[in-house]
């Protein structure tokens, strides 16, 4: 099998060699679509270079998978598990890395969240229903989704990816001609069934996987932020496989792994959670919801499957959504018009309040209380300044340094999280690995107990309100409301 069939120039990795099967996948309309799906959403409005696409990132992840597998192969690890079928399996894993983002919606997570919220509301009844609930006749009905319900549920992007692997004619044709089973690929990037027997199940979806390795480097390159500038060649050279066939690092590479994981934290805080990026993405989310309400966008599970089957999924990208937003802006009025204009003209909302701290995980319950109370005060805040409540938004986030430790430290949950955690090979027995947070000298052992908690109050101002006085008053009022909550917390009320 020739993994050097074609070479593609890449600003992060130099040149990326690909196989013929990978080239044919690249040429499918559904994969070409990723050129118009930005990896970082609206971050390019703050970092002008941050407009790289999921297309280049997917290629990069494929390349990283190839490098990792090559390193493992040179140590004889792959022959141990895939005797006689090493190249075929390497192709499957590279393909999984190449295709892991194929199901992403336009504007990725912002849109996916807006869709989920919109269609979840469709399952709810706005009024009291007086009809008695009659169970649906059992035989033959269960196990499948009624057409009506399929128009009210949604698909996560990983599931969309699986649907594309199975239904997209272009992708199907390539996989079939190269004798690659779609299920083998989706099993790897969705970490589905066969968990306990899957080889290198944490290669594509884990705390330290090829997705993250490429993402951090690529974002560092395109934003010129330094986070993610890790010695990847060294990291890859230190990778091995434990007795459970999971990817793991030698102890020597622990600091490099820590650097990478902390780079993720800095990247989130500076890029995804950047105050202006987050503010603009609030506007985007609300506009997408308006488009869903009006029927200009249709993204239920049934709609997405229709797009895939009809071959028009390849047209459903950032450009498509932006066109809809422009059309909406022309015909809309009131708050909707203001939001669309602010988004299109890059006029980010004002930040009336910003609060951020690093606390132990146990603080999360208290944080939710603060958030709940602040949400209840938004109407009061808006009324005080005679602005529509829809022009205010409480942005709330919490961020782990590592996901392990989120759940109870026992049983199935801890085991499942440890599957995703960075693992270190034992110095005395290189077939045994443990999660990095269990290493007494790892900084993540401490940081794993902490989270970042952040809260902001965004306000979409009209021109007349953008005077210094109004902003100062809003700052003051928001701070007063927040201080009351913090005082209540301190006094234990």
């Amino acid at each position, binding site marked *: 099998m020739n993994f050097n069939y074609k070479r593609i120039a890449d600003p992060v990795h130099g040149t990326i060699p690909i196989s013929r099967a990978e080239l044919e996948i690249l040429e499918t309309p559904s994969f070409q679509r990723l050129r118009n799906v930005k990896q970082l959403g609206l971050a390019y409005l703050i970092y002008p270079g941050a407009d790289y696409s999921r297309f280049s990132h997917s290629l990069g992840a494929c390349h990283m998978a190839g490098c990792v597998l090559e390193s493992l192969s040179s140590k004889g690890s792959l022959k141990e598990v895939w005797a006689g079928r090493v190249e075929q399996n390497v192709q499957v894993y590279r393909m999984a890395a190449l295709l892991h983002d194929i199901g992403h919606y336009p504007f990725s997570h912002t849109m996916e969240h807006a869709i*989920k*919220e*919109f269609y*979840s*509301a469709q*399952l*709810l*009844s706005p009024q009291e*229903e007086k*009809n008695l*609930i*009659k*169970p*649906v*006749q*059992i*035989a*033959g*009905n*269960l*196990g*499948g*989704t*009624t057409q*009506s*319900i*399929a128009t009210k*549920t*949604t*698909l*996560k992007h*990983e*599931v969309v990816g699986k649907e594309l692997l199975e239904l997209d004619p272009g992708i199907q044709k390539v996989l079939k001609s190269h004798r690659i089973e779609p299920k083998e690929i989706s099993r790897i990037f*969705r*970490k*589905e*069934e*066969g*968990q*306990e027997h899957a080889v290198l199940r944490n290669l594509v979806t884990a705390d330290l996987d090829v997705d993250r390795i490429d993402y951090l480097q690529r974002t560092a390159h395109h934003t010129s932020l330094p986070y993610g500038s890790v010695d990847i060649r060294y990291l890859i050279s230190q990778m091995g496989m434990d007795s459970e066939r999971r990817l793991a690092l030698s102890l020597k590479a622990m600091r490099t792994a820590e650097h990478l994981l902390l780079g993720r934290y800095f990247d989130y805080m500076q890029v995804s959670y950047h105050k202006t990026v987050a503010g603009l993405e609030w506007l985007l989310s609300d506009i997408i919801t308006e488009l869903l309400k009006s029927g200009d966008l249709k993204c239920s*599970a049934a709609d997405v499957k229709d797009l895939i089957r009809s071959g028009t999924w390849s047209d459903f990208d950032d450009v498509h959504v932006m066109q809809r937003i422009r059309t909406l802006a022309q015909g809309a009025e009131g708050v909707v018009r203001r939001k669309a204009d602010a988004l299109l003209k890059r006029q980010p909302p004002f930040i009336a309040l910003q609060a951020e701290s690093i606390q132990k995980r146990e603080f*999360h*319950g208290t944080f*939710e*209380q603060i*958030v*709940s109370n602040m949400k209840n005060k938004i109407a009061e805040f808006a009324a005080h300044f005679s602005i529509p409540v829809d022009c205010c938004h409480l942005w709330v986030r919490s961020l782990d340094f590592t996901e392990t430790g*989120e*759940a*109870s430290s*026992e*049983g*199935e*949950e801890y*085991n*499942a*999280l440890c599957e*995703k955690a960075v693992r270190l090979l034992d110095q005395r027995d290189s077939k045994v690995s443990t999660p990095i947070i269990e290493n007494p000298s790892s900084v993540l052992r401490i940081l794993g107990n902490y989270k970042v908690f952040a809260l902001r109050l965004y306000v979409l101002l009209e021109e007349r309100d953008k005077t210094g006085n109004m902003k100062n008053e809003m700052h003051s009022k928001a701070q007063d409301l927040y201080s009351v909550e913090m005082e209540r917390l301190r006094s234990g009320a």
Partner: protein
Amino acid sequence: MDRKFVVLKLFIDELGIPFDIESVESRLIVQKAIYLGQLSGIDLGYRYGWYIHGPYCSDLTKDYYALDRCLKAGDNDAQNNKFTGEVSSLIASIKLLLKPNSDVKLSYWLELLASYHFLRTVRGMGDVEAREIIQDKKSHLVQYLDVGVRALENFGLVSA
């Protein structure tokens, strides 16, 4: 509260399962109940993999912890909502399956049903192979295996 958490809470309530995540056992019940509940045709988007106690979804874990925090913070949004009649009807159809009809513990019953169904449909195993896995990995469930398999067959969820 995010709409998806409202839906999750209502779903668990309508399945007749207590929303309790304080113990390993109660969390297992929620995990398996949602797995089985989605078989009604209401796809909440939770996808499962095979772990120690059978089918498990890490996304669901994150969501029920987040939901728990919202509820403890006094967010009553879920109480002010209800499903449409169609949704409730579908859930009502599967609810009976979740009720053990013998003296088996609820956690065992749900673990058995979810595990056997997963092995048959997601892993694509035949009845014999699936039973072997249950006998090998879940000896505490073996005595209920026949009853559980019959229940799944009666609901049309696995073929005989």
